[in-house]
């Protein structure tokens, strides 16, 4: 056994397949991120509503889809929903009949549940006085939300959003259990063909690492752009966060 457990020839050969897997992983990240975010807004409003009839179902949704492991959600959608006769004969079978559809549904629901909490935390972090001042100025509720609360909430919640997106990307690695050939599945199949336990998996690890860090850099740039009106404060905030570690990385 040589010092480095990586076989460069095999790594080079498997690059095209790994790139294809990466594309699937990116696709399975972007689409559920968009759907989940779109779902999160109405659910978050329901969750924050004063009416119990709205808040309770939303809370149940969050508790279930956030508390259940993603693997079980995926099994539930992939195996469980096929059990329902009406669904199998209905028009939605195009979605639930395919592994991709199931994976996207499960991932979106999971992401939506996390995003409800991220959104809620960010909206609650907006100082109440600012909202009251806007109301006193006679700004409509819709405009207050769009132009006062949301812009601030995005800034407060950016770090939490980044953490959720990063852990979501890593979470997509399980979709191979429903026969989707994402990055992880490609690495696994190369392992099964060659019995080289290191080269394919370490190459896939490098791809995941690169993807995650591209997202991190993207968020850092976004955060800097959002804080462009106040560079000093941004620098101070970054310093205050520094003791929490290299990148302030925490779990959502």
């Amino acid at each position: 056994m040589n010092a480095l457990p990586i076989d460069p020839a095999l790594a080079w050969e498997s690059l095209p397949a790994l790139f294809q897997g990466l594309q699937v992983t990116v696709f399975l990240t972007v689409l559920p991120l968009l759907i989940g975010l779109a779902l999160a807004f109405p659910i978050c409003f329901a969750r924050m509503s004063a009416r119990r009839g709205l808040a309770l179902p939303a809370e149940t949704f969050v508790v279930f889809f956030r508390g259940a492991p993603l693997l079980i959600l995926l099994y539930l959608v992939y195996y469980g929903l096929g059990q329902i006769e009406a669904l199998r004969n209905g028009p939605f079978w195009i979605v639930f009949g395919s592994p991709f559809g199931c994976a996207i549904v499960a991932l979106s629901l999971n992401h939506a549940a996390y995003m409800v909490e991220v959104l809620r935390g960010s909206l609650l972090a907006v100082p109440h006085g600012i909202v009251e001042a806007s109301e006193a100025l006679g700004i409509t509720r819709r405009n207050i939300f769009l132009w006062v609360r949301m812009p601030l909430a995005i800034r407060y919640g950016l770090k939490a959003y980044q953490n959720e997106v990063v852990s979501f990307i890593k979470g997509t690695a399980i979709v191979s259990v429903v026969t989707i050939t994402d990055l992880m599945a490609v690495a696994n199949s190369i392992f099964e063909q060659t019995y080289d336990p290191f080269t394919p998996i370490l190459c896939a690890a490098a791809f995941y690492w690169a993807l995650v860090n591209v997202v991190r850099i993207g968020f850092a740039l976004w955060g800097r752009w959002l804080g462009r009106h106040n560079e000093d404060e941004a620098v101070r905030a970054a310093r205050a966060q520094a003791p929490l570690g290299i990148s302030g990385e925490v779990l959502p």
Partner: protein
Amino acid sequence: MTNLSLADLAGYLRQLGEGALVTLELFLASFALAFGLGVLIGVATLARGRLIRAAWRVYASIFMGVPSLLVIFLIFYGGSAMLGAVLGEFGARIDISPFGAGVAALGIVYSAYVAELVRGAIENLPKGQFEGARALAIPPLVMWGRVILPQVMRLALPGLVNVWSFMLKETPLVSLAGLQDLVASAKIAAGATKEPFLFFVATALVFIAFSAASLWLATRLEIRLDRGQRRDPARTPARAEA
């Protein structure tokens, strides 16, 4: 809707119970490893040395940037070869069980998160705590064990609870390496009975219930650890994370 007899159901429930025990063992062992390793790494990498800091950055960046499932597979498939490289002929003959691979992988991955929390908590402690201990000539081991780390635990507790509940949701991944845990048993039962909906929802509820119970305990623990800090014991923690 259901076509299960009561005896069948009891049998499957027993199997699920056994699986749940495996999952619980795996989770507790992994968390213990992550916690121990994380505290050690957190304390060790606080040193000013540039090399140590660089090593920590690389370690954290790798294990925070790579899916746990990938680390599980890496250790499960490649663990024997790795042990062989380190321990020689003897190590190569050790077979890695799914359980061992799972504990090692989850422990290593989450030790990075724990270390991050511990580092942050230590750096947020007032300098006077270290200076006071030194002025009183308290030996380093006692200082860490009796002065610094107890305070660190209080500061790091909310983050540790997050790691706890997040890690719990990642334990089912080890079933993909062949471990007969709760999720694997549920999958078998679902396939055999053609009742996947029932079994997977039940499994999900087990995880949610365990998570909720431990969160409740954590809140109690947090209030207790904070008792010297705040005058109002009925204070509700600001954190409402699940």
